[in-house]
């Protein structure tokens, strides 16, 4: 585009808006003439190019801004401020109410802004974090639609070798490690990572060095990098820690570095150690999906390109392998998306809700100050008569509102800071990064913007009123209230309707979330969680490498615990119900028949390994057949138990009992996991009440012993000191095995509904605020209406109207407004249907019962708020009312 003459002139006209009106015409004439002269074809001179024109337009803008800035005389501004403060102090009650209301509106918005920013917007603390991505396997054939899966070592190795989109790729395998040696034994969350992990994050250690490419080679020294929190907590922030050794899972490792506080990936990691693959694993373990792969995109590669490349790459790998990897594709997601997951719709709903509270607050304050502004008609008229310009009057009103809003904002930010601390404390809610919520510059900028908007919204009508101030009428006729009253009443009705609309929207939202929450808690999870205590143990490799030792330890431990008088039953499992522990494996053989690759992938089940007492301790029912028994030992024929969903998946329409099944994993042993199906147990909603039960196969721990188990203990009654008893029981077998993740099953079940509980709590607070503010607004508006109609009501009563008629007249008016408001509010809910439906369960956004209940509640509140002034109106003494003018 070249900036020709006409375009420049048009842009000048746009810029001229900035110039104060008194000087605008002169400014425009001068600049147009100069441009015309410069761009004029004078024959002998080349005409200047676009860059020149843009430069001159910039000069024009700066000139216009300078004129505007120098037109605001500081002395008049100070006068406006002084005048504003004086006028606010003259009406302390109105001012206080307005400031508090605005503080609520602005504070709530700042707090939610902070939370949303922490979760969705604030850059992750790594350089160039927008180029960090998670690469996962997309499992196209799994039941219930495509599911993101972890990555297997051979896939990772192929990607590493062949992909061109990434500067660096690293694999992560996170888990827990027993930290022993110094102090009490403790299970710490740690991640084994491949060599370039810290290159991907592009972070530097606080002390020592990061892990490097040499560390993940088989046979390299055993090293570890500590996380900031662990270093502070366990090693007192000792700067000389580098070079010392610690013992993790019985392996002595040299500390080579300490990471700064902000490095936290995967979230909650306390230490990083090298992840090493047996060369053989990189060939044979194609089905072992347990890695998280993180990469840094190259500068010249965007997400879409990387996606295309990785898809082509996985197609290539697949074709080479013929069958083994069918159905998986590499997919690339931004790191934040992978961390945050699907909380986006919920955040959107919360932002909408809190924005509505803001609008209600503004409407209330606008309605409050409206009366005051109209009461100042004389003041405005007088000042106009004395020569004040309209602009000056408007500015006066806006400055006053800005003082009001700023005072509210200061209080609001203080409240928001407290609220954010509260929000950051909802850690157990499972909303990632929410604990990073705090007041920062961006939150303050947001507050400032909200304050300016509030001042504008609140001051809009009074300012318009001031600008229309008529010099003659009010000064001549002190009785000229009729017109002002009508205008006031119309504006008030508008506010009342809007407030009711917004409040109904929030009420419906809160109602829907309440029903969601109740629906979630009412789902039978498939386990009986009452009083069940759980803890996990992980047997260190150095002493429990032999599988019989693991089996023996777990057997002895569970039997010892079950034998205690205060314990009703006890068992252990590799993979607890209601945990996010998913270990999904393809089925390898059914009744001795090798499955085709398609069938293998179609019959993926979740693998769990249990001890005989486990189902009883967990309150799971054996529907048919039997639970594992002590006789199912290492030497005896292997048996498995299926849940009903797995039975249906593997033998649709048949009885699964008596059939034989083998999975595509050996769990580190000599034989594939599998055996004869001897029992069917009920389904469990592992992924929370909202998700369908996963088909699950239970193997027996004595036959397929794992080094990691979670022990579940169902006590008799509610014994005191149960956890100490359990600790003692573990320590009696091996004092160097720490207990971790000690939680009741009730807590675990609660975590599944924690997220909706947080949303419910916040939305309930907003709806409560909204309904309180709206009822105050309705009450105020009705009280004013009745007050200004005192004379009319007096006349009506003098002419024979009964009290009842007066009351119903006022209520009718309120009712009309309320019904219109409710209708608009329900329409709002319809607009918000999509994001709402995504966080709802067992109810939809257009749920009739909820809408009716919320509407009824709102109508009742509105009528009540109108009834008080209506009753007062009916008590008016006609004689006094007529005399009052």
């Amino acid at each position, binding site marked *: 585009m070249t900036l020709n003459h006409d375009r420049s002139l048009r842009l000048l006209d746009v810029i001229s808006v900035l110039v104060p009106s008194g000087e605008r015409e002169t400014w425009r004439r001068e600049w147009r*003439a100069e441009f015309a002269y410069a761009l*004029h074809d004078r024959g002998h001179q080349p005409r200047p190019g676009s860059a020149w024109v843009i430069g001159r337009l910039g*000069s024009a803008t700066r000139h216009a801004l300078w004129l505007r800035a120098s037109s605001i005389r500081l002395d008049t501004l100070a006068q406006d401020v002084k005048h504003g403060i004086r006028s606010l102090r003259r009406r302390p009650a109105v001012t206080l109410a307005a400031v508090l209301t605005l503080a609520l509106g602005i504070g709530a918005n700042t707090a939610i802004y902070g939370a949303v920013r922490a979760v969705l917007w604030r850059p992750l603390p790594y350089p160039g974090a927008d180029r960090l991505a998670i690469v996962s396997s997309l499992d196209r054939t799994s039941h219930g639609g495509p599911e993101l899966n972890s990555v297997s070592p051979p896939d990772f190795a192929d990607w590493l070798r062949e992909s061109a989109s990434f500067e660096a790729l690293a694999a992560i395998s996170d888990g827990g490690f027993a930290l022993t040696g110094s102090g009490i034994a403790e299970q710490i969350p740690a991640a084994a990572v491949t060599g370039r992990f810290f290159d991907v994050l592009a972070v530097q250690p606080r002390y020592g060095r990061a892990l490097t490419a040499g560390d993940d080679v088989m046979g390299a020294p055993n090293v570890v990098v500590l996380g900031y929190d662990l270093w502070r907590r366990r090693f007192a922030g000792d700067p000389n820690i580098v070079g010392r050794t610690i013992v993790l899972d019985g392996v002595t490792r040299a500390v080579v570095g300490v990471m700064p506080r902000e490095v936290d990936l995967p979230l909650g990691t306390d230490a990083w150690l090298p992840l090493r693959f047996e060369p053989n694993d990189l060939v044979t373990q194609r089905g072992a999906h347990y890695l998280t792969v993180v990469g840094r995109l190259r500068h010249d590669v965007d997400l879409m390109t990387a996606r295309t490349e990785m898809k082509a790459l996985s197609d290539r790998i697949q074709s080479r392998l013929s069958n083994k990897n069918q159905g998986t594709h590499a997919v690339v997601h931004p790191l934040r998306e992978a961390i945050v997951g699907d909380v986006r719709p919920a955040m959107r709903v919360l932002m909408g809700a809190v924005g509505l509270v803001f609008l209600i607050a503004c409407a209330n304050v606008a309605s409050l100050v409206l009366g005051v502004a109209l009461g100042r008609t004389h003041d405005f008229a007088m000042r106009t008569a004395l020569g004040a310009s309209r602009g000056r009057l408007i500015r006066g009103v806006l400055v006053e509102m800005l003082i009001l809003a700023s005072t509210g904002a200061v209080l609001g930010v203080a409240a928001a800071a407290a609220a954010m601390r509260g929000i950051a404390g909802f850690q157990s809610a499972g909303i990632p990064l929410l604990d990073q919520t705090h007041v920062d510059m961006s939150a303050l900028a947001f507050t400032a913007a909200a304050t300016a908007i509030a001042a504008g919204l609140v001051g809009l009508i009074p300012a318009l009123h001031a600008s229309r101030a008529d010099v003659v009428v009010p000064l001549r006729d002190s009785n000229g209230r009729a017109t002002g009253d009508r205008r006031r009443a119309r504006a008030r009705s508008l506010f009342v309707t809007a407030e009711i609309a917004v409040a109904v929207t929030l009420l419906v939202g809160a109602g829907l979330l309440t029903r969601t929450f109740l629906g979630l808690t009412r789902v039978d999870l498939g386990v009986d969680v009452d009083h069940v205590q759980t803890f996990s143990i992980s047997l260190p490799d150095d002493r429990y490498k032999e599988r019989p030792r693991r089996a023996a330890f777990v057997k002895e431990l569970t039997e010892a615990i079950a034998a205690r008088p205060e314990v009703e039953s006890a068992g252990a499992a590799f993979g607890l119900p209601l945990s996010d522990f998913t270990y999904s494996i393809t089925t390898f053989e059914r009744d001795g028949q090798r499955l085709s690759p398609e069938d293998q992938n179609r019959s993926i089940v979740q693998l769990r390994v249990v001890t005989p007492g486990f189902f009883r301790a967990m309150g799971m029912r054996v529907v048919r057949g039997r639970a594992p028994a002590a006789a199912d030992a290492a030497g005896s024929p292997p048996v498995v138990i299926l849940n009903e969903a797995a039975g249906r998946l593997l033998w649709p329409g048949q009885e699964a009992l008596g059939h034989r099944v083998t999975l595509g994993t050996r769990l580190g042993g000599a034989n594939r996991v599998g055996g004869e199906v001897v029992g069917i147990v009920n389904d469990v909603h592992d992924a929370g009440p909202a998700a369908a039960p996963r088909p699950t196969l239970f193997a027996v721990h004595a036959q397929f012993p794992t080094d990691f188990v979670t022990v579940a203990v169902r006590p008799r009654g509610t014994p005191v000191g149960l956890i100490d008893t359990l600790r003692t029981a573990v320590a009696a077998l091996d004092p160097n095995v720490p207990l971790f993740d000690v939680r009741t099953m009730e807590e675990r079940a609660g975590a599944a509904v924690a997220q909706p509980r947080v949303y419910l709590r916040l939305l309930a607070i907003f709806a409560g605020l909204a309904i309180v503010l709206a009822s105050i607004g309705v009450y105020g508006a009705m009280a004013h209406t009745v007050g200004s109609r005192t004379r009319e009501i007096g006349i009506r009563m003098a002419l024979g109207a009964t009290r009842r008629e007066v009351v119903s007249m006022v209520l009718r008016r309120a009712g009309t407004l309320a019904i219109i408001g409710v209708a608009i509010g329900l329409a709002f809910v319809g607009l918000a249907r999509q994001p709402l439906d995504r966080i709802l369960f067992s109810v939809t956004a257009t749920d009739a019962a909820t809408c009716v209940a919320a509407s009824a509640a709102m109508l009742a509140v509105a009528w009540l708020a109108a009834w008080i002034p209506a009753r007062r109106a009916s008590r008016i003494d006609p004689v006094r009312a007529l005399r009052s003018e």
Partner: protein
Amino acid sequence: MSKSLSVAALTVLHAVAQGTAHGFDIIDSTGLPGGTVYPALSRLERDGFVSSSWEDVHIARADHRPPRRYYRATPLGVRTLNEALGRLHALKPVRAARATRPVRDSR
């Protein structure tokens, strides 16, 4: 002198007093950015150091363009300019002071 003028304002006033009458010409002759020249002109006019009027409409029309605004220095402006230049002239050039501390080798 009631108000002290910035170097930029003095430069602009000097250009106007020498007969450079139009905004864009002043920008070109002084080499100052337009965003400096125009505010300076507006302030000089507000303070009474320059006055402005419009070009004769016949000249402009003959040239097929709108009349330009032209600036002239007022007698007050010329006096103020000369005073300021005189004060500047009284200042003598200075030789660069020697470093009081030896500068250390910074690699």
